[in-house]
């Protein structure tokens, strides 16, 4: 099809434009729009028929009118130009530079939507990444190629945690560093700046590609940004053999942009007005993490999302949890007690931990210690709850021990400095120090052997 420019906008509705009487255009094709002000905008065909074509405009449709809007169909899908020069650069959602440097020129261009990975081509992720953070390494270990989101809330230190992970993440005994893809949607200028400074001060800036859409940038661009960023990540991982760590924030802003368009299109809503396809849409993003059998590189993904009203059953965290390989949940209560990182241990989970820890990877007792800490801490929280009802004095001796355990666990194990890096052995030893507050009869998740080796119980 020719690259014709049309002036046939029939109606404009939110971020959507309806065109009539254009030639047959393909679904997903890239569109350029020019308004009276001469500004060029980008769009994509999201429904197409012989009579009407529906275009979604990433920069929004403010100031566009029906008479003076020119639309050009580029006859190609949205693609990103790829080159090693992307490292150290800063782009917007469609891959145009945000820094004052020239655009990436390359003959290698890929459709940002990617295509689904064949499950038969995947390799199972199992290499333990040490983040230096006890609640992650000890209890919810991250492995290379995993997608492990942080479920947070407004005002909680998720950025600090993500930055600490980026700074400290390494494979024990492996010197190769991660390359970082940072994708930010609808974040404040100061949050974006925080990350930039973090990358700068830890000297990794030259190994970072940033894709940024700020809170005051066009919201619709958020729909394409994570796809653009992951196209870059796949290139870095599978063409250039890097181990890539992708930090995406904030998935909630992404989902809200999706809901906005869905509502404008009149899609049938499911829960809280989000369209029924939110699950599949999120999965298209999250499932791009992983490892492939015949490739050296990998994509490890840490999406950050804020839970509206701290509600983990809200569709965004809920559907994310159904797709990702676990979640690190932050707690407002611990944050209030000045515990950093305020990781809410019981609802946090890493599904890929089971094959990445233990004898050959970390230490033989690791999986059992993790399970024991979970069991003991939830038991301790019950005791704390009981104490709040009947008073600590009324508790049995055993429950009072648990009460003490809960306090120490939060103060010594969960809490650590934003720069404190504990290696996995330190984390496990610390765990045993705490488990030694409880009598051996209470520790049935660990083995007799573990107890002999690591438990130091004195009756007091």
């Amino acid at each position: 099809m020719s690259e014709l420019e049309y002036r046939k906008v029939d109606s404009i509705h939110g971020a959507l434009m309806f065109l009539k009487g254009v030639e047959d255009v393909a679904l997903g094709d890239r569109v350029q729009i020019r308004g009276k002000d001469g500004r060029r905008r980008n769009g994509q065909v999201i429904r197409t028929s012989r009579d009407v074509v529906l275009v979604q405009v990433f920069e929004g449709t403010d100031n566009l009118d029906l008479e003076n809007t020119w639309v050009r169909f580029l006859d190609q899908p949205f693609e990103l130009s790829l080159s090693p020069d992307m490292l150290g650069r800063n782009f917007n959602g469609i891959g145009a530079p945000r820094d004052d440097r020239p655009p990436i020129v390359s003959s290698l261009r890929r459709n940002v939507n990617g295509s689904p990975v064949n499950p038969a081509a995947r390799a199972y992720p199992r290499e333990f990444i040490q983040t230096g953070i006890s609640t992650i390494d000890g209890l919810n270990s991250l492995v290379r190629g995993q997608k492990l989101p942080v479920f947070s809330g407004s005002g909680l230190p998720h950025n600090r945690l993500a930055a600490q992970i980026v700074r400290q993440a390494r494979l024990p005994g492996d010197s190769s560093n991660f390359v970082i893809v940072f994708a930010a949607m609808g974040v404040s200028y100061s949050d974006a700046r925080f990350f930039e400074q973090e990358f700068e001060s830890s000297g990794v800036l030259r190994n970072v590609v940033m894709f940024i859409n700020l809170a005051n940038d066009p919201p619709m661009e958020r729909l394409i940004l994570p796809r653009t960023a992951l196209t870059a990540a796949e290139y870095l991982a599978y063409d250039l053999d890097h181990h890539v760590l992708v930090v995406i924030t904030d998935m909630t802003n992404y989902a809200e942009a999706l809901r906005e368009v869905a509502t404008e299109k009149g899609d049938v809503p499911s829960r809280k007005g989000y369209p029924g396809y939110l699950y599949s849409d999120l999965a298209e993003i999250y499932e791009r993490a992983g490892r492939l059998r015949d490739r050296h590189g990998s994509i490890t993904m840490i999406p950050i999302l804020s839970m509206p009203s701290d509600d983990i059953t809200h569709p965004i965290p809920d559907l994310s949890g159904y797709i990702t390989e676990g979640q690190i949940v932050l707690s407002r209560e611990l944050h209030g007690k000045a515990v950093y990182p305020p990781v809410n241990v019981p609802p946090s989970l890493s599904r890929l931990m089971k094959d990445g820890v233990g004898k050959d990877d970390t230490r033989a007792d690791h999986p059992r210690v993790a399970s024991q800490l979970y069991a003991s801490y939830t038991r301790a929280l019950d005791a704390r709850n009981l104490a709040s009802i009947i008073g600590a004095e009324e508790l049995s001796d055993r429950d009072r021990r648990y009460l003490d355990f809960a306090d120490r666990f939060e103060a010594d194990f969960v809490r650590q400095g934003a720069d404190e890096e504990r290696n996995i052995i330190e984390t496990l030893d610390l765990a045993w120090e705490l488990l030694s507050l409880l009598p051996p009869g209470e520790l049935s998740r660990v083995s007799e052997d573990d107890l002999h080796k690591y438990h130091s119980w004195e009756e007091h």
Partner: protein
Amino acid sequence: MGKVLEVNGPIVTIQQPGIRNGEQVKIGRMNLIGEVIHIRAEDALVQVYESTESLRPGERVEGLGHPLTVELGPGLLGQIFDGVQRPLDKIMQLSGEHISRGLEVSALDRERVWHYVPAPGIVVGNRLNGGQVLGTVRETETIEHRVLAPPGCKGEIIEHAPEGDYNIEEIIVRLRLDHGPVESLMMYHNWPVRQPRPYRSRAKSGLPLITGQRILDTFFPMLKGGKAAVPGPFGAGKTIVQQQIARWANADIVLYVGCGERGNELVEILQTFPELTDPYSGRSLMERTFLVANTSNMPVVAREASIYVGVTMAEYYRDQGYDVVMVADSTSRWAEALREVAGRLGQMPVEEGYPAYLASRLAAFYERAGNVDTLAGAQGSVSLIGAVSPPGGDFSEPVTSHTKEIIRTFWALSKPLADARHYPAVSWLESFTDYSERAAEWWSENVSPQWSLRRQQALSLLAEADELERIVNLVGPEALSSSQRWVLESSGLIKEAVLQQSALDPVDSYCSPDKQFQLLDLVLQYHQAGTELIDLGVPVEQLTETAFGGEIKRLKSTVSNDDLSPLQDYSDKIRQSFDLMRAEYHNHRGAAS
């Protein structure tokens, strides 16, 4: 030749006079495959199994003249297929690591040669009916594939191939159909997935499906040919429960359908199953297993199809006289695919966007489970076990609540249990089964006549303990009597020593029926012996201070299925020690008075 009129996500409007509802169509330059789901005067709607990106109005459309069918014959086992039965490793050879569109790959290998042995009755002049066994090939070391005549054919054998090596497209039997024409039969045939395969009659319910998981087998047993659901919030353990069933169930064939879930979970099966041994045959688990995969990032419409593709293949092995288990993870994703298509068709949503036919589709799917007398005169079964992923973990949502009405075994997973890493997080309060009486017959004959009693005692102890815990949470532990505190102790023991069972524990991942019973029996003996002492006046602290509690909790991981004698020894040890305590207590009291 028709053409495309409109492209709206996976729904494409076409103009193709004469097309039939349900017919497969091939669309556009990319040869996308889809299925007609709605016919109107001027046009028809097609749901497309692949992404429609870059498709444009005006592109050509071709009707294929048949509905969505699967190929049924030797070579299915050990494979992984996509939602429309294309083998994923073949796809990888053609398109690399990413799945490209419009690939035509047949399910069964055309080149592979099988050693075919005709069945005794396959003789010229004999009559042949649909579903009858033509002969056998060894599909894997463990499974003999019984080649079936396609259901529906009926005639007289006029020619047949002798024993020998054939590929699946060679003709092995020719028969003159009753209405005249000659039909050639090969080692495979096609079957439309939305049509249940016929059988002679329903048979009465089967034996327990043993999964090696104590909370399932002992507390909420399921039967072969049954239907079960595993609902639970994210991370509660649905996938692991299903993987454990796939590993350890005493079925002949296991089909794992990954429907809208994670790619890595299928990789895990593909990588671990070949190395695991089937506890019944002693051979690689992969020899009896096959998979259907439409992961969450694969096109939604094929997700809807994958469930039917799966259950049709399951029925096919059932018709060979096998007990087949199909696990589907997750039926919620299938229901969402229905919803997605319904929404695009503008059908009226009734609850949470789901169309009115959700309940009937669910029921029709589960109806394909069952025990049957096959057309070949054998017995076979399909057991269906579906995971359900309720939004927000809310069991009152439409998919969970409709499913609950249909299935007979409900393994409800609980978030608080999962948060405490009590796995499997199957709630003993919310779960149920309708099969416990049938199961009891088997357990009492094969394991112990005490089984029903013990199971009932354990369930009541757990219920009583839950009640007591409520009291403690109101007024504190001091309000309880000694024997009530002992009930709490013992129920804790049941939870940790019996119910909790880690899939990752090499010893405990599979627990034999005998071990299941003996462990439970041991804990209940301990409880009874303790209760007697307490009734005599022995203080409860004296009992809880012993090391028994801690040790009993570890027995599951130290005593192997092959040698249960340590359990007996241990139970003797407890008895002796308690007898001693009783004697001491008597002496003590005697001395005091």
